[in-house]
């Protein structure tokens, strides 16, 4: 793992991966949008409103996936002091927050016509809202210190503590009775969803993952460059102070 922790190596790897992740994201999201809006049937109960699912469900997966990635990067940063892990955790946070926000918003837009309410304080919806606040807390904390290292450390601890929320989200619909229905795709006995509807769902999910990789590379590059700028500036100040 340490082999990839070197910023120079990351930049070289990023250069190779970026065109591929861009292409996969564009293709999958393009095809996914076509199947989601045109190439898939209406649901036998929910009619056309089921199309919201193709944004809502992959967004929910990404919200949780990004949090797990962030927590893993944070653990790597705390335990092994990988020079890159902090930067990758920091780069993942806004993507996770964006998808969690999308999940909540599209869920609301779906809940109004189907359930009859924009929002319900059931275990699934509430734990998802907590996830959004954890992302906000992380992003605020990571920038709250003058010394970036202290910010990274504090935020990494928050990311690890907040990770207990992820299994609560996943199994809230099984542990307690909720307004939200249980899982359809990842469950014992195979998906309870017709294959014609599974296609756009999975296309969108793969597209979102590729999108995350592209954003991770872009934000990672920005963080590495900013770090180098900081080091050069410090050296200049140092040199100026010595020169006087």
């Amino acid at each position, binding site marked *: 793992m340490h082999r990839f922790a070197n910023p120079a190596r990351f930049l070289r790897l990023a250069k190779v991966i970026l065109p591929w992740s861009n292409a996969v994201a564009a293709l999958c999201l393009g095809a996914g949008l076509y199947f989601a809006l045109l190439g898939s*049937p*209406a*649901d*036998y*109960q*929910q*009619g056309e*409103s*089921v199309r919201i*699912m193709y944004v809502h469900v992959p967004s929910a997966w990404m919200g949780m996936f990004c949090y797990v990635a962030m927590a893993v990067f944070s*653990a790597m940063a*705390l*335990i*092994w002091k990988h020079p890159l892990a902090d930067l990758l955790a920091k780069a993942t946070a806004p993507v996770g927050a964006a998808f969690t926000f999308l999940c909540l918003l599209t869920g609301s837009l779906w809940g109004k*016509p*189907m*359930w*009859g*309410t924009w929002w*319900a*304080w*059931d*275990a699934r919806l509430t734990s998802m809202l907590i996830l959004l606040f954890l992302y906000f807390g992380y992003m605020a904390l990571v920038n709250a210190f003058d010394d970036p290292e202290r910010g990274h450390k504090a935020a990494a601890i928050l990311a*690890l*503590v907040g*990770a*207990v929320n992820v299994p*609560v989200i996943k199994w809230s619909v099984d*542990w*307690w*009775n*909720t*307004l939200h*229905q*249980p*899982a*359809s795709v990842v*469950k014992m006995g195979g998906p*309870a*969803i*017709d294959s*014609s*509807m599974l296609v756009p769902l999975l296309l969108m999910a793969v597209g979102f993952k590729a999108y995350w990789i592209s954003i991770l590379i872009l934000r990672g590059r920005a963080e590495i460059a900013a770090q180098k700028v900081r080091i050069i500036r410090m050296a200049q100040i140092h040199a100026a102070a010595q020169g006087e």
Partner: protein
Amino acid sequence: MTRKQRRLYFVLLGMLALGGAVALVLTAISDSLVYFYSPTDIVEQRIPEGRRMRIGGLVENDSLVKDGKTVTFKVTDVTNAVPVTYTGVLPDLFREGQGVVVEGRMDKGGQFKATEVLAKHDENYMPKEVADALKKSGQWNDGKQQK
């Protein structure tokens, strides 16, 4: 033990302790985390009239009666059923045999006066043709729905 190992064990132990604590708390307050009670809970626990609560279950088949804007129906969990009256707009998914959550109060006569009716949908998604074909071939499984 190297410092790296010590940090690894520290993080692992910390996560374990935290996970355990959260699990305990969630188990302890489990009752307030449920979004609704089942009709059997209502019948067995004799919840006092006038207290605001939610009941969830299926709309019993052939129990729905519409009288202008007021509807009466029964919420059932197969074992027990609670009669409900409601005046207002019903969600699109509301229909007999489907999951429903009603919020309101029990009145003296054992009727549940709902102020809000929410439809609950199940985890099955399919086009209408597939649903019809399943029903025709007798492979339709109603038991899969919300208990």
